[in-house]
């Protein structure tokens, strides 16, 4: 069974701190997506990583796809209150078809 495990489940930090959240699996994924979801809204896509070892930057957010394409990380530099939300990673099922596997998410709270 393909699973995506995210850690930590919850993170509360002060504005200006750096943080890293992780998305791990024992299975290889052809791609992984990261989403941010704010309360009462749908998840919004942040990035898709496709190539093993790939690093993508989105302002203060840095995403990395593991060399073996089994894991990914999201690093936020100088976190701001606006970064508060639920961060979800997701990837396609290897059996093909049209289904996506989601991690349970990391809930981030950045205090001003």
């Amino acid at each position, binding site marked *: 069974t393909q699973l995506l495990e995210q850690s930590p489940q919850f993170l509360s930090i002060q504005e200006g701190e750096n943080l890293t959240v992780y998305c791990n699996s024992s299975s290889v994924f*052809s791609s992984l997506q990261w989403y941010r979801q704010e309360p*009462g*809204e*749908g*998840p919004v*896509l942040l990035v*898709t990583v496709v190539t093993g070892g790939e690093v993508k930057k989105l302002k203060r957010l840095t995403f990395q796809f593991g060399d073996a394409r089994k894991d990914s990380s999201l690093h936020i530099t100088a976190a701001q209150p606006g970064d508060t939300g639920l961060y979800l990673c997701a990837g396609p099922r290897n059996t093909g078809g049209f289904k*996506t596997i*989601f*991690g349970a998410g990391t809930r981030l709270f950045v205090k001003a």
Partner: protein
Amino acid sequence: SQTIHQWPATLVQPVGSPLSLECTVEGTSNPNLYWYRQAAGRGLQLLFYSVGIGQISSEVPQNLSASRPQDRQFILSSKKLLLSDSGFYLCAWRFGLSSGNTIYFGEGSWLTVV
């Protein structure tokens, strides 16, 4: 560009009443469409998906049903709501061809069954 819209945003319904949540996608043809439910503090549970008009696959046995009467319209329904149907419902779409796995979500619909 593509957009997705679902409504209503918020719904409070009594137990035993019917339900209809609607979702439409614009700017693409023959998308894959999905309904997810997200319980408070928990992950996303796939309820239904559709790869074409009239084609519905159910992931879990439940009190809900889905229909796709038009290419870019997806409807979530129930004849009689249960308390356990309360939750946050998300419609989503993906390109029908295998051009990537990225799923795009609607704004979500809060359903409270009382």
